[in-house]
Every structure is written in C-alpha cells, then in structure tokens.
C-alpha cells in the first residue's frame, strides 16, 4: 500500500507536483497517468525517497521509504530505463544490487530467467536495446520478491511481445496480492492493464477512481449526423433546429455534424420537423483514450503547433506575391479541408491528394471549448 498525503514538490519557481493525495491499494494494478511533464516521475521519485517532498508525506507499507530497513525486499522499482552503469554486465549489475540487501546470488540468475536475459547476462549493458534495458530494470525490481512494485513507463521501448509479457506479468503479480503502481502516458495501454487509475495533469490530481468509473464519468457520447452533400442550406437549418432544442452542434471535418445533448430519436424527430433529410445518424461513445484526452487537454505542457515552414523561406525575392499558397501539386492548402466536402460522397476525410496539413482549429476546439472541469461537476446530479 502506498499513501501520499498532500505531496508537493517545487523546483525553484516551478511546481512539479502540487498537493497530491492518493492511495494505492494492494491486489490491484493502479495506473498512474498524465501527459508528459505532468509530474509522474517526480512523484515516483518522492515515493522512493530519491527526492524530498517540499511538503506533504508519502509512505510505503506505512513507513517513509528512507526508513525501510531493507527496502528492496519490500519495494521493487523500475526507474526510467538505463538507471544502470553501462560498463557493467547485466549479471554483475544485478549482483551488486542484490548484495546491498543481502539477496543471494541464486536469485540473480532466477530473475534473469524471468525476464529472459539469461543468455546476454554476461554482456555489458551498454549494448542493450531499450527493450533489453527495460527487462534488466524489471529484473532489478523483482530481485527482492517485494510486495510493492513501482514501474515507471515499463512498456517504453518494448516490442509487442514484450508489452504483452509485461502486461501479463503485472497482472500475475497483482493477483498474488501485491501492490502494483505503474505510470504511463499511454491511456490505451492502461485501459488494457489497470484496474484503478490515478490521473494527474500539471502536477495536480485530476482523478482517482476505477477504470470503469473513469470511463463512465468522463467519456461523452454524441451522435454523428450527416445531411446530403452539397446542401448547405439543409445543414444550417438542422443546426439551428438542434441548437434551439438544447443540442450542442459542432461541424466535423468531413461535413457531418457532431451533436451532443440530444438523444438519437429526438434528433431524428427534429430533422423531420425541419424538413431535413438525413444520410447518417449514428451513435458514438468516446473511448478511454478520448476521455483522457478531453480531461487532460488543459493540462498539457508541451503543445505542438502546425509547422508553418516560414522559417525556410527566402526573406526577399520575386516569389513572395503568390506566397506559399500554390507550391507543388499534391499539396492541399489548409483552407480547403473544412469547407467544401470533396467529391466522394460516403467517406472523405482529410487527405484527398497526397498531403494536407490538418486544419488547426476544428479537432481540438469543440472539446477544449467546453471546459472539462465544470462538466465533471454536473455529472452526478
């Protein structure tokens, strides 16, 4: 069991983790999720006594980590891969870690077998791939047969087989009644692995609940509605009618409408009353990934912008008049995408010819505009 109470860590003026409280229960896999830079690794380091919290406390099995008499026998940790001296062989690395906590040599070979590194145990870990490095780190975590395990981004660099292996390993460890705390920025991975979720963004707790509750609370359903192509009037009319009756309507890239807040039959009725024909009316439910994206949208530290490529242009010369709008064929200027739907009626998303940069606003704006926090508050009522 891991208990954090009011955990806060500041580095100078930057607050990496703020007032974080959560409990990690035994017998479950608890996923620790958040965007890059959200404070996951900082929290992990504080749990392991590597970083001292600025305020607040965190205990493992009831004790602060640095007070544990034989830490590796109670807590195993996979830190970011390659917290390893590359000049040492895998076996010697594990041996020196094992000796620190009085673990016999036999155990080293045992865990080498468990992670499948027996054959390369004599090789210097400098030459290991990322996946092999992860396996070595996992071997180190398992050395002490601990009741609490922390994995920081364990699937990084693993191949699909390796990912399946670590997933099953964690499930097995949890089923033995151990406490498993695993951080990841991949919500899709957590959906398959975790029983419980602790979500943080910008160092603050955003959710602490079971995976099922998380989906129920944070995924929003909506309907996709499509009017016949080329009939802009119909589209506007339907939008007006739906909005009037309390629906939230947002245009999608391909000309369809995304309608939230109205049940499907009601949308159909309203369309009928407005005299609008429908080519599509389909239900959608956001996945865990989407729910997570919606939730953490405001908490992403590193956001990318569309590559303008203006830095590459010659500052002066005869070319500028036409500017950048008409380069090689096969390049579709951004403006073309959202407006007129292309010729194919059924399905026509972004890339009709070659390469089209994604239009900047639409995909993010809808969900972002409706701030996630107030909606959360509304949900239980």
């Amino acid at each position, binding site marked *: 069991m891991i208990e954090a109470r009011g955990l806060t860590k500041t580095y100078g003026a930057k607050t990496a983790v703020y007032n974080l409280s959560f409990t990690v229960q035994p017998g479950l896999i608890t996923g620790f999720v958040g965007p890059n830079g959200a404070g996951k690794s900082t929290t992990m380091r504080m749990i392991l006594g590597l970083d001292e919290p600025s305020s607040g406390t965190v205990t493992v099995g009831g004790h602060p980590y*640095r007070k544990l008499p034989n830490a*590796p026998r109670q807590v195993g940790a996979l830190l970011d891969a390659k917290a390893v*001296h590359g000049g040492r062989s895998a076996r010697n690395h594990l041996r020196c*870690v094992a000796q620190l906590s009085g673990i016999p040599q036999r155990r080293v070979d045992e865990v080498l077998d468990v992670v499948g590194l027996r054959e390369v145990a004599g090789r210097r870990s400098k030459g290991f791939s990322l996946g092999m490095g992860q396996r070595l780190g996992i071997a180190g975590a398992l050395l002490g047969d601990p009741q609490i395990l922390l994995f920081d981004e364990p699937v990084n660099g693993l191949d699909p087989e390796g990912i399946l292996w670590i997933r099953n390993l964690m499930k097995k460890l949890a089923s033995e009644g151990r406490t498993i705390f695993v951080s990841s920025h991949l919500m899709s991975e957590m959906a398959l692995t975790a029983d419980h979720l602790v979500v943080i963004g910008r160092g603050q707790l955003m959710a602490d609940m079971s995976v099922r509750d998380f989906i129920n609370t944070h995924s*929003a359903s909506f309907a996709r509605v499509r009017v016949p192509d080329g009939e802009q009037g119909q589209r506007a009319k339907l939008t007006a009618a739906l909005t009037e009756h309390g629906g939230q309507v947002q245009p999608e890239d391909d000309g369809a409408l995304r309608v939230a*807040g109205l049940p499907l039959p009601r949308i159909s009725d309203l369309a009928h009353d407005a005299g609008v024909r429908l080519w599509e009316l389909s239900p959608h439910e956001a996945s865990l990934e989407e729910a997570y994206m919606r939730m953490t949208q405001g908490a992403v530290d590193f956001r990318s912008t569309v590559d303008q490529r203006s830095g590459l242009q010659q500052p002066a010369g005869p070319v500028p008049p036409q500017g950048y709008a008409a380069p090689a064929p096969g390049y579709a200027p951004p403006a073309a995408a959202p407006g007129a739907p292309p010729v194919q009626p059924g399905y026509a998303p972004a890339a009709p010819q070659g390469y089209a940069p994604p239009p900047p606003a639409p995909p993010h704006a809808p969900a972002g505009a409706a701030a996630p926090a107030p909606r959360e508050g509304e949900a239980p009522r």
Partner: protein
Amino acid sequence: MSYPPQPSAPAPGAPPVPGAAPGAAPPVPPPPGGGYSSPIPIVRTHLGHAFASEWTKIRSVRSTMWTLGIMLVLVVGVGFLIALAMATDDWVGAPLLSGGLFGLMLGQICIVTLGVLVITSEYGTGMIRTTLTASPQRWRVLAAKAVVFFVLAFVLTTVACAITAVIHSSVLSGQTVPEYEYDDPMFKDSISDSGELVATGGQWFDATVGAALYVSLLGLLALAVGAILRHSAGAITTMVGFILLPLIIALFMQAESLKEVQRKLIEYSPLSGLASLFGIPFFEDGAVGGWGLLSLLAAVTGGMLLLAFALLSKRDV
C-alpha cells in the same frame, strides 16, 4: 472512436453521462486480504552488505582495471627508467629511494581519476538512483565506496611503491657517499659505516607505506569532491588543479613582496608532502615534514568527506 452495435443504449441524455448510472457504480474492489508477503525471510541490512556490493561494483567495470593498471605501469616503469638513468653516475646525490617519486607523481593522477569515477560514474549513468533505491540509507553507500576504494588504492599503490623501492635499492646501492655530503641532513642516518649510501627502515616505510597512504588520501579526497560535484570532468579537473596549481601559481610569484606567499604555496602544495616522504623535501628547513603534510591532507579529506555525506543525505538524486 468506435461504432457500438447497439443504437439505442448510449443515446445522449445528459451530455457527459451515458447509460450507466454513475452514482451507483461500486467503489474500488476490496483488496484481497493483507496483500503479499514473500516466503523468503528478510534480513536486516548493514554496512557489510554495502561493502560487498561496492566491491562487486569496483571490480566489474573497466575503468578500475585501466586506471589501476596504468598506475602500476607508470610507477614501476618510470621508477625503473629513473633507476637506470641514475645508475650511470658514481654518485647520484639523492637518497637511495627518492627516485620513486617521479613515477608516483604521474601514478597519483590515475588514483585521483579512479576516486572521482567511483562516485561520478553512478551519477553520469543514472546508476545512483538504482543504488539509492536499493539502499535508502545513503551514508552507507558512500561509506562503503570510500572504504573499498581507499583500501584497494592503498594496497595497490603500496605494492607499486615497494617494487619501485626494491628496484632502486638493488640498482643504486653500493655508492660511496663523498665526504662533503656527510653534514647534509638529507643523508642523516643513511650512510653506512663503510661510507656507502643505504636506506634506513624509516625511509623504506616512508617511500612505500607513507607515499601510498598519501596518494590514497588524495584519491579519497577526489572521491569526496566527486560526490560533491557529481560530475566526472568537473571533479577530475578540480583535483588536478588542486595538485598542480599551487606550484604553477608560485612559479610566477617572483616579486620580493610575495616571497613569503610563494614559499608557503610551494611548501604546502600536495606534491611537497609526497616529495618529503621520499626524502627530498622542497625546503630543507620546512616547518612540517612529510607526515605533517600527510596529516594535513587527511584533515582536509575528512572535512570534504563530511561535507559529501551531508550533501548526499540532503540532496535530491
């Protein structure tokens, strides 16, 4: 994005909440009683475990083999060449074992480098996080590192100095000390009854154990500096500066008003202590001898180690 086959279920009533009633959802499944406990008994760890671990660590990296190997080659090899060079003259004008100094002056750089690397390589590679996770009693790790390194450096440097001393003794003994040298304090007690140059027991001890202790202390100081700076290049540069700069600065202090400062810089420079232990002090009338300077170095090293311990337990890793 998925297309669930059941069209009726998720009809969006209230915006964010789909069919399942969220209030009724059960909380976390109850933890299956008590959690896991390992069948293997847990031992209480102590400093001995850290010694074993650090011994494995220092043995299993190439930098140890390289630095110590080069140290041995330099001390013995340069010592041998100097002995050959001195053997051509009838009278060399220096104590019998003093030629070992020059090889050791080079060899000490290897010991200093290893001392730094023992700790900074862990910071450089991230290994320190693994180490301190495995042993949250941080002082134990640094203490074990210091002891294991010091003992290893001391034993090997003593061996290197002893081999060199034996070479010098066998190649250069049998010289007749000229009459005019009899009053020189440098040769006090080291002239046999028949007028030949010999080395006293004290000189043997100083040129082997004393010199090795001195160099190992320098290495330990380097380890402390490495633990404080946590950066290989920075710590090695600092240590080389500490060893050489006093002499280099003194070289340019020729002004009369600076004579006293210049003298102090030379007398208390790290190399001065080593030279004194080999019987060729920089100043015949120095206030402190080789062992005095060695004690001074030990005090400085102790102070820096204390600082290193304090910082290690306080700092984030």
